[in-house]
């Protein structure tokens, strides 16, 4: 009898250790995943030159058309960001596609996730609509679908044609760096950031060329050249989210050149 008991206890001990090991290993692999995940050969990123942005809002409209976004929602907002040298300056804000994205870390079902190319993606089918990601995002980049978007999209066809499905009611949505354009373009042998058909719609439509899209891993990309030669900032960098959207701040001299 006592033998039997001992065995049972041993078994329980072994089982407990086993479960703890598996759980720990799983948690560790997850922790790794949430700090960037497996990185592919490309790391897409964007730099926005605030000196060139004139706040026209074309990017917002092109985004709404290509991604079939409701007029109540902006994946890409343009905020007034004060005056520099007597000129109004703007700050366009897409999703930052953070390397350490709070939204991915907090999502209970893993509906927000990292693609190997660095894009922070949403799996709208997995999402249950708890809105934890929305609370966690330091950039207010997420908008919840409080109601279903069933009307015709006023941005279509003037600003482009929808390339992705509409999101259902009850999920938060956000900018995806036009992953559909990148994926399709690359499958056709095009280069994102160079060929318009493989580049996010907001970058293509920008009339002043304020947005540059490219590969962080490619030193020859225009994007890399800018971030290595010019002073750039990232939003709320102190939080450690490591955004993949960079800004070249506007200086007073930028506007002097333009006027002279």
């Amino acid at each position, binding site marked *: 009898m006592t033998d039997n008991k001992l065995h049972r206890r041993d078994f329980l001990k072994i089982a407990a250790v086993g479960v703890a090991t598996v759980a720990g290993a799983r948690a560790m692999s997850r922790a790794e995943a949430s700090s960037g995940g497996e990185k592919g050969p490309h790391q897409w990123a964007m730099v926005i030159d605030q000196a060139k942005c004139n706040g026209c809002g074309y990017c917002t409209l092109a985004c709404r058309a290509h991604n079939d976004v409701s007029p109540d929602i902006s994946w890409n907002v343009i905020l007034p960001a004060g005056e520099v040298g007597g000129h109004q300056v703007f*700050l366009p804000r897409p999703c930052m596609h953070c390397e350490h994205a709070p939204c991915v870390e907090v999502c209970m*079902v*893993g509906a927000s996730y990292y693609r190997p190319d660095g894009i922070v993606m949403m799996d709208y089918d997995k999402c249950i609509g708890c809105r*934890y990601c929305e609370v966690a995002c330091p950039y207010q980049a*997420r908008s919840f*679908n409080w109601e279903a978007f069933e009307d015709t999209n006023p941005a279509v066809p003037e600003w482009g044609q929808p390339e992705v499905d509409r999101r259902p009611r*009850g999920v*938060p949505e956000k900018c995806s760096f036009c992953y559909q354009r990148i994926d399709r373009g690359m499958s056709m042998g095009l280069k994102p950031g160079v060929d318009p058909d493989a580049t996010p719609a907001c970058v293509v439509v920008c009339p002043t060329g304020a947005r540059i899209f490219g590969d962080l891993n490619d030193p020859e990309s225009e994007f890399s050249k800018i971030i290595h030669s010019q002073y750039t900032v990232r939003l709320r960098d102190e939080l450690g989210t490591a955004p993949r959207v960079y800004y070249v701040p506007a200086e007073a001299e930028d506007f002097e050149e333009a006027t002279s």
Partner: protein
Amino acid sequence: MIAKLKARLPKPTLWLAWLAFLGLFLFTGVTAGVLVLWKGLSVTNLTDYVPWGLWITIDLSSIALAAGAFSLCAAVYLIGLKRYQPIARTATFVGLIGYSMAMLCLFIDIGRPFKFYQALIYWNTHSLLWEVTMCVILYFTVLLLESMPIIANWEWLRNRFPKLTAKMSHVHHYAPYLAIAGLFLSSLHQSSLGATYGVLKARPFWYKPEMSVLFMLSAIIGGISMTLFASMLASRLTSKAKINDALIERVSHFIGWALVGYFYWRFWDTLSMTYTYEPGRTEGLHLITTGPLAFNFWIGEVLLGIVVPMILLLNRKTRLNPFWRMAALLMVVGGVVAFRWDINLSGALVLVSYLPGQPTVSYASYTPSLVEWAAGLGVIAYGLLAFSLGVRYLRVVDHRLTDEEHETVKVTATEPVTV
């Protein structure tokens, strides 16, 4: 004819009036719930800035007020304070109701209610809400098992399925094991609900480690107070409820001292952590000390929620007086609810700008819509109804009852050594 009908109708009693009163709230609650499922969350006043509001407060409060179950079960079955077993029994049932209320409330609060099961299929073990979900579901199972002997008290069930009820009563033999599971699961998620807020860098007023401690402490205090208050109230209203006043008085004394600790923690957390200006955090503090949440904080949380009941429960004279003791326990419950409301809003209402340069802070606003109130009150009415039925039919508050002794380790004497 009318006289005949009248004779058929049950006599109006206080019990029926209470049921009708709850029925009214249940009806509007169900109507509001259907409206939410049909129209979506656009019928709420929630926004992208404040996506969590009244329902989250109700959900967090019902989980907190259910915490008497794990704390009292741990005290009885693990620490060995067996004399409190009858109260633990009431607490278990209150816990069961609390968790079912929380799940009901969450069901309408999530954007895609009918996809709730996906929370079980897709796992992000890194997420605190994943952990909370798992713990809540597992703990609800534990509570169901712990409540089996209580449900077996239902006379109709006893007569109809005597064998089943005998089996259900037998679950009590595993009470110590269930208490271990309950303590483990509850300590995890009660504190993690605080950490859910505490890990969010984007919201400076929430971003602090002591959120977990505060949630845990307030849950234990509020949960036990809820159970004690409900027991005392039931015993005054119906002869079906019998309390052991001496037991309640002793636990209340403990609550009084626990409030001293909680007071210290809340004071330390709230008033001393913002010594220097920090964008967002200081504004959050202003919201609760001088802003729109000030009344709720100073009166609801501090004065009525902690200080007054602390004095009433530590002072022997007032503690022995059932009226003052009940008042004090109810104040503690109210204080915990006020705490959940303040925590949720003080963080959510403060928006820190992400523009480069000096961070600026702006305020959002939120007042629950009529539908939110109706659905929320409906959930509360459900909880009250379930407890009332429990008191009437399951003898949930019967502190003379002691379940049969649970299984203890049987030590058989070794055979006498014969030389």
